[in-house]
């Protein structure tokens, strides 16, 4: 199991389109992937779950991946956050 803390750095936060990108990026992985924010844990492969986190700019998230390809899944997820979901801001 891998865990990693990350801060939401795109200006608009985890809105529908950003959540969609996250969910799509994780679709191919076998690992179970969860995001925790303010004590609430959701399945990162569910767009509704991710949107309902209400994680805006600056939110501190804990990412957790558990499964055979957990490293690759975590890397893909972190990469997306660091690219600010390609929103350019």
């Amino acid at each position, binding site marked *: 199991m891998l865990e990693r803390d990350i801060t939401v750095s795109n200006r608009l936060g985890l809105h*529908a389109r950003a959540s*969609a990108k996250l969910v799509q990026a994780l679709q191919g992985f076998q690992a179970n992937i969860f995001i925790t924010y303010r004590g609430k844990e959701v399945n990162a492969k569910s*767009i*509704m779950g991710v949107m*309902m986190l209400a994680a*805006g700019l600056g939110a501190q998230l804990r990412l957790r991946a558990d499964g055979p390809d957990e490293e690759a899944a975590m890397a893909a997820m972190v990469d997306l956050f660091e690219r600010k979901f390609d929103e350019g801001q």
Partner: protein
Amino acid sequence: MRSVLKGGSAARGMALGRARLEQPGRILVDDRPLAADEIEPEVERLLAAIGLARDELRTLRDKLHGTLASEVGDFLEAHGLILADRDLVAGLVDLVRLGRYRASAALKLQRDKLVAVFEAMEDAYLRSRKEDIDHVLGRVQAALVRESSVEERKLASRVGEILVSDIVAPAELVPLAENGMLGAVLTNGSTLSHSAILARSLRLPMVVGVDDALGSIADGDLILVDGEHGEVVVHPNAQDIARYRHWQREQVQIGKRLARLREAQTLTRDGVPIRLYANAERPADVARARLSGAAGIGLYRTEFLFLQRREIPGEEEQFLAYRDLVLGMGGLPVTIRTLDLGADKADASGVALEEEPNPALGVRGVRLALRHPQLMISQLRAIVRASSYGPVRILVPMITLIEEIHSVRRMLDQCVHDLRSTGQEIAGQVELGAMIEVPAAAIALGGLIRYVDFISIGTNDLVQYVLAADRANDHLGTLYDPLHPAVIKLLAQILAIARRARRPVSLCGEMAADTRYTALLLALGLEDFSMHPGALLEVRERIAQLDHAELLRHAPALLRASSGARIAGVLQRMQA
């Protein structure tokens, strides 16, 4: 029982017809629990509707191409994923199977639950995205409704109906009117919204801000919409109907009187010629512009071409539309405004260009165009090609900086060069103008105007930006006032600078169409008006009553007045 509901008059005129209640955003729900044998068929109906909604989203996305494919595509992609979300679908199915709710009731419950979560969010932007939920679940609801044949029959015709709803999007209004709808009564809305502007141009009586309309009017009630007084009469009595008939006869008289003005020149009482142009966005507007004796098209809004289709029309399609417009005006000048979309205007069509927290101050008009040069170039090429069929000018919205004009000018020169080098026949010169609606451009006009061939004042946005007051926000009441001294001074300054620089200047906001402001605008020196064609004859009639030299003498008093009320006072004396 007769009752009278009060509201604001958003579009004048009267209409008598059957109320047709529409509750968009909300969901009409059949609350009766399902019988045991109804459950599985209802689950299937629900899943079929979800499937239909997903197919629709996919079809929409496949139609997208060009520069918008990525942005709008992402948005549709997200909605598609929401519909595919296992938790969401399982939750809905559980409501039907375990809760014995009908599909529409399950959708409403789920929507309300999700929206409540969004409404509790701290982040203002994320909170506003409950729209995504409404949009997605609304699509499923619409798919459910379409399946029922009764509903289909009801949708087929609007003849004799008056829409009663909370709000109506501009994109919805046109097809409703074309299908015979007579008028609209809205609980929300503003007299200054885009829908209200459109209703006026469609000559569709509209009363807004009628708080209890949805509670006091039942589907099928006979109602009288009185857009002259901002009233709605439910179950009108014989006297109301007589009043309506009287108004109708009066309209026929006015129509005859105005018809005589069609061929007439526009002259003030003392013989000064004034030019009245028509604003247009649909083919029907062009016909009406001709019928009203317009001097040309002063503002052709190309958004309609874009919004109607929910996809980006290519150069060829745009060229054909512009060519027909130019041919339709038979040699009279046509000013085509380049795409003026922003996050707010795009929403009306159901396709958001960008999600922006503050669309009025965001990427819109020329700002959007410069971010999507391919989109702008295909539009400029289409316009330039249309210019071989008659006189055409290009108007660029939201100009703030001289550099923006330079950028567009470079693109335009390149288009002309490219077209010429492929042997296309095009007009010697296509004039380029700036829409003056950003206060910065208005204040610094002296430096900017040398780089354009003409300007057009967009008062709707200019007034809202100068006063920092959203014209569609009901809560601001009278704050949005075109008679504010700052607005009057700025208009006078723009007109004076244009005169000194010898650049033609027209005014194309709602002010141009409102006969309450005709004397004011003439006094400030305006000679070119552009308005929706429906208002043209009335303004021409008004101008004929006014003495130009006399009005010009009042200009200093207008500029000295320190409040909107004082300016209104001077105006009254001028027109006495």
